[in-house]
């Protein structure tokens, strides 16, 4: 399925990353109309004063997301599910519009060199270039204008800045006079800044594409550079004809406009709430709702939340907490002292908004009472204002105060900003205060007593991952599989199989260790096993010998794995299912049709492509192997190729490959098929892959051949029980000789352990009974590509030996 995202801002990026994380197989394509990879607009100011580069403010985008730049979408064809840019067409299955907003201008400035808006990296660039040697005029009194103003004030190259304000307030019309004065002072104490209230541009003289003179109600400025920060409007002109729009593109509470179309972020308007997002948090929440509706089983409705904004200008520091319910009428209580104002906006004993300037209140507390709509007594609020001694508010998004952060750093031995992520998201949500947070971490290093640090950052990270994995596994519990057994049945079944608890625990440890998971994951693995039966499984046998199926039913730890084998929802497996003929075909169709995107497809055997695939035909209609494979793979959540034939054609594709056989990935032309090679493979690797898929909702770390690293990372030769004899130069020289009786190295008898990566030396086969090296034969590298033409013999390997 292709998820097409139009837009390149924070909402789009968040959505793309989340979608890819949930479904690694989803084809996510992102179309940005800009020339740059996504970046964080919040830091645009840093581009103007060159305190950061575009690279530095870039947003992390999952590298598997396909990003197309310079694609401004001008048309949608809903019928055919396509969108068009000037020079390209993109198909979609699901479309998400996240085009954000466009800045307002009082007149067309596209042809004027010395006027700009402030919305993109290109804007920042043109401001940076254009302000040289000119008087800067910033129009507007909102946060964007104020923030830019602050930066410009600090720049040495800027000599004079004028702020044109149409009315008589700064930041927000609801602020008290005291607050506005405080804000104003923080700017105007710098002599190069002027604020002109109740003023606006009334005339401009343009020559050669330049504003030569600007005339406002009160001022006349020669040769200015004008920056407009007078508000934004949703960027939806390309969609007005085809989608229902009001201020923004109208959506339901799941952010859905129409069947396959969604809109999020500043371009979207939630119909029921009349809400258009303006904050990062709201955009992220909307993206989250979209993902839930699109990809998860549990859609959730968008709910407006209390938001926190912050404006920092030098020493001056403004925090604005606004409830979703905020509107007129309200009563206001203003508490002011020197250099410090708290404004409480109340209605019917409920707090609707709080603005604090240079204040020291507990923001999290404000947020909570607004979110919960608790009744408040004003004296409580007054107390809150002085009760906390947490230092200055550093991160408004996470309500982290200076002293809180120092505590965290000291207690946990946080050494870097990266480490901090395991304990606090401070500096990471909108990112504005990141620099400040970094400084606090650096400044607190000397306070850390490493003898007292309890949990390392890694510990915490693992715990978090375990938690996440647990949640994902729990999600499967809500699926309704064909094989409706639950955890209690598993317990009962274990009892009837006489399986003891410690036996199970040992097995869980073994599987976890085999998957190279931290021991803390054992609990999740155990719960994973319990819901394993919720994953519907189709096991297809193509051009095979059933060796892998046989291996699976003979897996290493008989009672437990047999039980799991019984227990997993092996809904289609020709070797074992009781249904035959038409009945078995309906079983297959039922899964493919009714459990789209949920089932796992395991394929055993090669895919013959010669003779139009007719070397293998299955079913009443005589479907060819490749047709059947394609049909089953199309809607599978995961495709696992089991055994060497499914990996690369194996023995069936050995020279001269009479039937034109290939492996599953090649037959499907896909690079997202997990290969579990081996002739046959160790069944534990199959169970491990299923568990990993459930716990992490993604493919396990894979090697270059898409084989799970945990099973194929180690080289046989390095882990071989006979390695010591190799080092000692003790070799078997002929079958049955003294060396053979003593278990010496088999290299000279053609053992290919040096060329093979697999876990055989540690896992062995048949309940740990033996493996080819133990049986004195040596390895034939059956996990490797083309091994029958290269390694399957009893001679020392030289290139010329190969077939």
């Amino acid at each position, binding site marked *: 399925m292709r998820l097409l995202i139009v837009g390149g801002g924070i909402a789009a990026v968040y959505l793309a990353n989340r979608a890819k994380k949930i479904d690694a197989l989803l084809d996510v394509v992102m179309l940005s109309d800009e020339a740059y990879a996504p970046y964080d607009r919040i830091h645009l100011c840093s581009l103007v004063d060159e305190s950061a580069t575009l690279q530095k403010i870039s947003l992390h985008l999952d590298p598997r997301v396909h990003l197309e730049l310079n694609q401004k979408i001008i048309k949608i064809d809903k019928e055919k599910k396509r969108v068009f840019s000037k020079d390209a067409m993109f198909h979609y299955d699901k479309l998400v519009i996240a085009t954000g907003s466009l800045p307002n201008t009082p007149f067309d400035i596209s042809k004027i060199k010395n006027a700009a808006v402030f919305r993109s990296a290109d804007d920042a660039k043109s401001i940076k270039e254009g302000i040289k040697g000119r008087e800067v005029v910033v129009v507007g009194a909102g946060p964007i204008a104020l923030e830019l103003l602050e930066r410009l004030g600090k720049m040495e190259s800027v000599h004079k800045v004028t702020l044109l304000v149409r009315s008589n307030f700064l930041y927000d019309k609801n602020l008290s006079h005291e607050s506005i004065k405080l804000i104003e002072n923080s700017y105007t104490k710098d002599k190069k800044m002027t604020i002109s209230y109740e003023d606006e541009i009334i005339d401009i003289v343009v020559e050669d594409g330049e504003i030569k003179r600007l005339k406002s109600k009160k001022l006349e400025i020669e040769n200015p550079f004008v920056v407009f920060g007078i508000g934004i409007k949703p960027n939806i002109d390309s969609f007005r004809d085809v989608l229902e729009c009001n201020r923004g593109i109208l959506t339901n509470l799941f952010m859905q406009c129409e069947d396959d179309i969604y809109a999020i972020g500043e371009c979207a308007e939630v119909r029921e709430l009349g809400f258009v997002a303006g904050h990062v948090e709201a955009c992220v929440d909307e993206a989250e709702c979209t993902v839930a509706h699109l990809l998860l089983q549990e859609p959730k409705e968008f709910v407006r939340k209390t938001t926190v904004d912050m404006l920092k200008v030098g020493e001056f520091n403004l925090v604005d907490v606004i409830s979703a319910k905020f509107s007129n009428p309200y009563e206001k209580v203003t508490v002011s002292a020197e250099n410090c104002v708290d404004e409480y906006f109340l209605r019917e004993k409920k707090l609707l908004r709080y603005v604090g300037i240079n204040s020291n209140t507990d923001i999290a507390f404000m947020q909570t009472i607004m979110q919960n709509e608790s009744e408040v007594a004003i004296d409580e609020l007054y107390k809150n204002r002085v009760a906390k001694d947490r230092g200055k508010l550093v991160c408004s998004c996470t309500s982290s105060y200076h002293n809180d952060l120092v505590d965290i750093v000291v207690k946990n031995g946080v050494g870097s900003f990266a480490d901090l992520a395991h304990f606090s998201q401070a500096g990471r949500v909108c990112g504005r205060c990141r620099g400040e947070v970094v400084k606090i971490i650096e400044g607190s290093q000397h306070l850390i007593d490493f003898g007292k640090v309890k949990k390392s950052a890694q510990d915490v990270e693992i715990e978090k991952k375990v938690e996440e994995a647990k949640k994902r596994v729990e999600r499967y519990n809500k699926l309704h599989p064909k*094989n*409706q*057994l639950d955890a209690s*049945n598993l317990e*009962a*079944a274990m009892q009837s199989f006489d399986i003891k608890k410690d036996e199970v625990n040992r097995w869980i440890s073994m599987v976890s260790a085999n998957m190279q998971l931290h021991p803390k994951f054992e609990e999740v693995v155990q719960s994973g096993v319990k819901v394993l039966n919720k994953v519907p499984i189709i096991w297809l046998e193509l*051009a*095979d010998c*059933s*060796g*892998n199926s046989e*291996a699976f*039913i003979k897996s290493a730890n*008989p009672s437990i794995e*047999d039980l799991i084998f*019984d227990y*997993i929802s092996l*809904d289609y497996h020709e*070797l*074992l*299912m*009781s*249904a035959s*003929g038409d009945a*078995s075909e*309906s079983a297959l169709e039922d899964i493919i049709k009714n459990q789209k995107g949920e089932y796992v497809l395991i394929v055993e055997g*090669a895919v013959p492509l010669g*003779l139009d695939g*007719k*070397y*293998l*035909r*299955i079913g*009443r*209609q005589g479907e060819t192997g490749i047709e059947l494979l394609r049909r089953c793979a199309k809607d599978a959540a995961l495709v696992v190729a089991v055994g060497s034939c499914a990996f690369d054609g194996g*023995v*069936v594709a*050995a*020279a001269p*490959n009479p*039937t*034109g*056989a290939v492996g599953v990935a090649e037959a499907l032309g896909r690079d997202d098929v997990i290969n579990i090679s081996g002739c046959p493979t160790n069944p534990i690797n199959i169970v491990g892959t299923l568990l990993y898929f459930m716990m992490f909702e993604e493919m396990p770390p894979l090697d270059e051949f898409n084989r799970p690293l945990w099973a194929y990372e180690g080289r046989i030769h390095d882990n071989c029980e006979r390695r010591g004899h190799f080092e000692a130069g003790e070799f078997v020289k*002929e*079958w*049955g000789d003294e060396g*053979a009786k003593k*278990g010496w190295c088999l290299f000279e008898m053609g053992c290919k352990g040096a060329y093979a990566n697999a876990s055989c030396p540690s896992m062995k*086969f*048949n*309940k740990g*009974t*033996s493996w*080819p090296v*133990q*049986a*004195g*034969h040596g390895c*034939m590298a059956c996990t490797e590509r083309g091994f029958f033409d290269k390694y399957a*013999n009893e001679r020392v390997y030289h290139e010329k030996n190969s077939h």
Partner: protein
Amino acid sequence: MKKIVIDPVTRIEGHLRVEVEVDEGGVVREAYASGGLFRGIEIILKNRDPRDAGLLAGRICGVCTNSHFRAAVSSVEDAYGIELPKNAQIIRDLIAMALFIQDHVVHFYHLHSLDFVDVTSALQADAALALEEAKKYAKNPYASSLSHYEAVLLKLQNFVKAGRLGPFAYGYWGHSAYKLTPEQNLIIISHYLEALKFQTELSKAVAIFGGKTPHPQSIVVGGVTSVADMLNPQRLNDYIFSIKEAKEFVDNAYLSDMKLLAAAYRDEIKAGTGRGAGNFFSVGGYAFDATQQLFSSGVVYGHDFSKVEEFDESKITEEVDRAWYSADGEVCYTDLNDDGTLKTAKSDDKYSWIKAPRYNGEAMECGPLARVFVSYAKSNELIKPFVDEFLKDTDLELTDLSSSVGRNAARAIESAYICEYVFKLVSDLLQNIKHDDTQTWAKYEFEKLPHCAKGRAFFEVPRGVLSHFVSIKDQKIENYSVIAPTTWNASPKDRFGKRGAYEQALIGIKIKDTAKPLEVLRVIHSFDPCLACAVHVIDAKGVELGNYKIKSVSCMV
């Protein structure tokens, strides 16, 4: 005439299609068995070093895994005239014997029993009555106690409650051809579950000397490699222990379940349901004690056990008139009908990837039943008491075994018999080691072996007679050919219209519900089909290996 198509036939190895034509009364008048997959392993074997044949040919089948491995190596040894050391012979036999038992048990319980046993009916069983019932068929029924049956019932209830049963889903449950009482169903299902555990134990026995299973890796031209395992008393002990456990199960569960089936399905047995033409052959084998042999060789025609002909390999021919090959051995795929059914309208229409081997011009049946018949008819004193006891306990005659249920009975009898005598092979091995004979490999220098040679190997393997033929030229495999047990049994018709064993056994059976052809599955499964084994390119001139080529393009007729 109405046509019933079953594809895929499940609970077998590989890809098998069966089409039967029934008359108004539901009686099968014609049948076609078709192998649906061609891989061309023999073509792949060509031009390779003869010493590599085993590892590659082993991959013909992952179920009969060891059989092809061994047969391929043996055919090369035969070509070079290499005499196998006694110990190597015994170790190969020990691997094979463990596989016989394991294969038979898995076949009956996991691949076949559900054709006779109704899982859902077992839910109505009374555990106490089941306990009584079990005692009718065995002196010491396996794992038989009230609590055991109660536990199994509970487990079943848990599984069945939801009505969706994973691999049990979509079975023909409640079909009127199911004849067991709830208690009888419960008994066999409890063994189904026990066998799941037990078969993994037995595969340990294969792995002790084979390195692993499926696809053991310890046989080489001239001997075996697992000499260190052979000299390790603990390994031998483990092997013996596994077989002892197997014997306990075979005697008290498998064999007794067969007696139970023989009683419950007596009418079917007496009516000869699933009976073929009665042509059986066995090549015998598995010698011990210098003079004894587990199976006898010979040929029986038309159920006439009074006359046993000596087996003569030169009487084997192969035909391809109805298989997708041309007379000179090329692939000649003539496709299916437009609706996906087999092309069978004309008497020379081709319809299977399986060639048609014939013995003395006759379609033959091989397998446990054939081994039991031939050995019994040749008065093999070792097997006779096992057969006699079974016939006595079930009040059946020898010929009655020539039926679907009888084929299973023969498999169980054979398993019990092997469990009894495999210890003789172990003691032969111990005697050798005691007398300081620890040789496991016959030394040869490959370069000095004849550069051109031909060899063949015949073995009795779980499903019947397996033969490999190799021809070597300039130290490379020039030609290779395999006739596997299922090649014989699942063979298509020949140019005279003579049906293969599956097809013949289906003729005359009555199908109660054509939408649920349980009766067809019963007959087919009783042969223990193994299709990966069965499909091999034709050798145009009989066992004299001919030259054939294969083209990747079909010759549309």
